[in-house]
């Protein structure tokens, strides 16, 4: 063989040193860059957490809800369920890829369908999780310095604002709505209670104490004495906070909520786009596109993306809920 032919073969394509097709390799490189994006977010979360290491919210106290079990304290169970759903849909995806290797159209169809269902359950669960987090549960008071004061009873159990604060008939002021003034100026809904009502409620209920966000040596939040509690609320309390958004967060540092929304939101967006891509590929499978092509490699490529989404969730789960 002459060198000219050999060179034409080497540089003219058709030579696969990595034994992977162009599309698959590019999917891998996309995944590397996306993994670095997610690491950037998670590392930034770590930065903020190390910055406030002595006052970061305890995840077990934040995510304690389970759908249809109202008032039951179930830390972590729901998110464990979500993790399992995502791993399970990863399994059906890899089974679809495997069936694709055997050119078994009906099995690929079934497994792709199950993968899509798993993805939808996960996105729905995440929406529920967000909704619970945004609505909040106990309510808290934010101080002038931006710290969060929560309420507990003598045994250290959390007490919700609605349990000890009485709402007076006359509110301080009405919520400013667009229809009452400039059409482009409005504000979010006002908290159910005013600061004065919280102070009255605290004074009237002898066994309610204030809990600050500072963690003690045992890793628990510091509970103030009765005098300190009233003093702290009267002196520094500024706003009543219910639930969490990008400005305030009844569970502790607003940064916790910001990163929660941003990272799980970005991940949820990946899951959502993964579901959309899976649906497109699903219809291609049903229509027999890959059957005619005699190769189900497209299923393999979206599979890589789908597994990556699962992989990211494994890390999000650890750093948001466990550590």
């Amino acid at each position: 063989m002459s060198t000219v032919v050999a060179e034409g073969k080497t540089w003219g394509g058709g030579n696969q040193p990595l034994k992977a097709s162009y599309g698959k390799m590019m999917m891998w490189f996309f995944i590397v860059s996306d993994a670095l994006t997610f690491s950037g977010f998670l590392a930034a979360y770590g930065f903020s957490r190390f910055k406030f290491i002595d006052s970061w919210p305890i995840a077990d106290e934040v995510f304690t809800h389970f759908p249809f079990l109202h008032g039951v304290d179930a830390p972590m169970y729901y998110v464990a369920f979500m993790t399992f759903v995502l791993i399970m849909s990863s399994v059906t995806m890899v089974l679809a890829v495997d069936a694709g290797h055997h050119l078994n159209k009906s099995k690929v169809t079934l497994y792709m369908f199950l993968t899509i269902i798993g993805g939808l359950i996960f996105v729905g669960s995440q929406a529920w999780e967000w909704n619970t987090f945004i609505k909040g549960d106990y309510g808290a008071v934010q101080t002038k310095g931006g710290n969060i004061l929560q309420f507990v009873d003598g045994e250290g159990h959390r007490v919700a604002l609605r349990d000890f604060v009485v709402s007076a008939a006359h509110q301080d002021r009405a919520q400013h709505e667009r229809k009452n003034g400039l059409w482009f100026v409005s504000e979010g809904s006002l908290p159910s209670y005013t600061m004065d009502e919280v102070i009255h409620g605290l004074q009237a209920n002898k066994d309610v104490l204030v809990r600050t966000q500072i963690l003690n040596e045992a890793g628990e939040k510091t509970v103030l004495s009765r005098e300190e509690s009233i003093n702290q609320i009267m002196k520094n309390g500024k706003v009543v906070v219910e639930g969490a958004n990008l400005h305030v967060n009844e569970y502790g540092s607003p940064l916790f909520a910001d990163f929660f929304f941003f990272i799980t939101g970005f991940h949820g967006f990946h899951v959502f786009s993964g579901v959309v891509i899976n649906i497109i590929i699903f219809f291609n499978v049903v229509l027999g596109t890959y059957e005619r092509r005699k190769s189900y490699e497209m299923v393999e490529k979206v599979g890589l993306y789908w597994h990556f989404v699962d992989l990211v969730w494994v890390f999000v789960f650890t750093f948001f809920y466990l550590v």
Partner: protein
Amino acid sequence: MAHEHKLEIFRGLLKFKSNTQKIWGVLAFLTLVTAVEVFLGIIKPDWGSFLGMKALNWIFIILTIVKAYYITWDFMHMRDETKALRRMVVWTAIFLILYLIFILLQEGGYVFDVYKDGYIKRDF
């Protein structure tokens, strides 16, 4: 097109008969690891601290990396790729991520010290 899969996991300790069987085996293992994580997350045993972080947190991080390994190697079939592709993807990511984490956590700890020992009042 032949699709050969390496069917043994745990360094050859466990060998499966078919690819499908391996997938279910890996699922069982991942579920077990997740269950252990959730269990430890709920009871939160106090095992002291190690290298400036709670020992329990190190265990969580190690278990997470174990899970990530099996997802990448068996679900994403990294085990069946050539060595060069594997190293390109994995080492690049690992090197850059470790570097980023080191810098940001170092800086975060420093800012914490400035807040704590410096002249910035936060307790109000």
